[in-house]
């Protein structure tokens, strides 16, 4: 009833370091000393903006990422696989929940909530990861997502386990613990196919051929110039993550290529090799223009997946409306 906001319950001051050089210096000192920043701590606007962008994109990617695998949930070929993949996709929704909660608390000072995130997604303003715009054509795709897409996600997420933002870092501890199950769930499907019939092996190789460029793209362009934008600088400066896009991609190739080859699989890149001198993998760059197109919601399944979310959201508007409780806002 009153236009009175108690401390800690209302808007946090949103400020920039230009206005508060002293606070900015103190903030940088804290994160450089390894301290964690909490939601109601002072933070530079650039930090808040970077986190909102990163975490809402991460969160909504989990939500959108549930959809490609979900296509195979009802079709999974045994009771055990049905249960396993259901639990796995449920976790993706759960990770989305954790991450969106973190993003929502950061957005609260701007008066935004989950509904705004959903609307941003449906309008095309909030992007989701390139891999989740792709088609899943066979059961092998479901396994491959668990193994190699989640593998890529594990590399990027573990890189942020020490992130300077406390709530994000805590959510990531939970998420990474569950990712271990995801990796093994994916490996189990892949292993059965790799050791299965000729058709199963062919199905697996076909899936890998189709997914390979998307997997390389997952880590983002090596430099800002490639696509004209990259958030990697700010995230490293603010101790949110440690490595560059390319550093993460190299770590991924280090860990996963030997395993791919050990299953008798190939990747669709004849030039790929490890350069002993430079200590890195030399590989054919994916088409970064295509990457730009994909994440602008012009990928093979972008519009279809957004349509699913839109239908789900709109069809249940009556539920949210029916149970909404009154709040007084200033």
């Amino acid at each position: 009833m009153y236009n009175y906001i108690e401390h800690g319950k209302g808007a946090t001051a949103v400020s920039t370091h230009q206005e508060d050089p002293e606070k900015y210096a103190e903030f940088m000192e804290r994160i450089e000393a390894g301290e964690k920043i909490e939601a109601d701590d002072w933070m530079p606007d650039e930090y808040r903006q970077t986190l909102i962008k990163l975490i809402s994109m991460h969160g909504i990617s989990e939500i959108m990422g549930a959809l490609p695998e979900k296509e195979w949930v009802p079709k999974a070929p045994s009771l055990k696989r049905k249960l396993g993949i259901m639990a796995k996709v449920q976790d993706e929704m759960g990770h989305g929940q954790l991450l969106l909660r973190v993003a929502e608390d950061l957005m609260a000072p701007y008066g935004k909530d989950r509904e705004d995130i959903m609307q941003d997604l449906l309008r095309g303003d909030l992007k989701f990861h390139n891999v989740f715009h792709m088609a899943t054509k066979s059961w092998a795709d479901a396994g491959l997502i668990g193994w190699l897409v989640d593998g890529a996600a594990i590399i990027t997420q573990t890189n942020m386990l020490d992130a300077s933002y406390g709530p994000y870092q805590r959510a990531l501890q939970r998420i990474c613990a569950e990712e271990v199950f995801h990796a093994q769930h994916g490996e189990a499907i892949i292993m059965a196919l790799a050791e299965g019939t000729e058709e199963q092996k062919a199905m697996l190789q076909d899936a890998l051929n189709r997914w390979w460029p998307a997997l390389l793209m997952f880590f983002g362009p090596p430099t800002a110039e490639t696509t004209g934008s990259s958030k990697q600088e700010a995230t490293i400066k603010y101790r949110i993550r440690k490595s560059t896009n390319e550093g993460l991609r190299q770590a991924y190739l280090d860990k996963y290529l030997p395993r791919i080859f050990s299953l008798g699989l190939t990747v669709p890149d004849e030039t790929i090799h490890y350069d002993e001198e430079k200590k890195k993998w030399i590989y054919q760059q994916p088409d970064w223009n295509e990457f730009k197109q994909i994440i602008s919601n012009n990928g093979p399944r972008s519009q279809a997946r957004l349509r699913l979310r839109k239908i789900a959201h709109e069809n249940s508007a009556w539920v949210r409306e029916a149970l909404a409780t009154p709040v007084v806002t200033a």
Partner: protein
Amino acid sequence: MSLVETAEQAKQDAAYKEALVEVLYQLADDDFIISYRGSEWLGLAPHIEEDVAFSSITQNTMGHAMLFYQLLEELGEGDADALAHERISNERRNGTYFEIKNGSGTYLEEPQYDWALAVVRNYLYEAFKKVKLEEALKSSYAPLRNTADKVLMEQPYHLGHWKTWITQLQDSSQEAKERIQSRLDEAWKQIGDAFELGPKADDILAKEILSSSETLKQRWLDSVKETLTYVPNGDLASELGNGRAKEHTDQLDQALATLSEVYNSDREAVW
């Protein structure tokens, strides 16, 4: 009737076994088809947190189906995966109301799913399942008693969950009230066969494998009337057919085609 302790013992009495497997198929097929419909909802619930909670219930329920299929496996009916994936619609014994689609469209395209149907159907189902399993605790078949006991351990959460949803929605907005009431009207016309015991009903009762259809129905009605503020007029009907007598809608065919698509692509392969 004295207690039948093992599958081996049950198999020695052909009439007993035949009656027993009917009950087990009903329990297994009900849980399996409703959890299949639940799995189609994954990612599409009205709220992210609810999506996660709902999926746990779906997984638990499919786990329960698996336990009942395993009891059938022990009785020589075939392995659990084959029972779940290979049987065509006129071999299934689930109640027809549990097989109907979540709404128009498919989970892959234009899923015009209705949360009122999800809430009403799941609530009515869980209330029914509780009654049926409690009656199964008195069964002459010991392995069924044991499984019913196990399932009843985690099932109260399921019932509580859906009871919360229906309790809140039925007395909220006018739109919600109307949606819930019209789904209840629909349920009353379609859920009747769920209470039937099928062609072996007489033996099921004579051999004390399960309680009567009337008992199940009455106990269920008593329980849902405590929760529902609107109860449709008239008797329960089975407009979609009698699932316990293996009569089904083409919506079950659609479900079976989807859930066994990969399995059927190579039944011999290890997946």
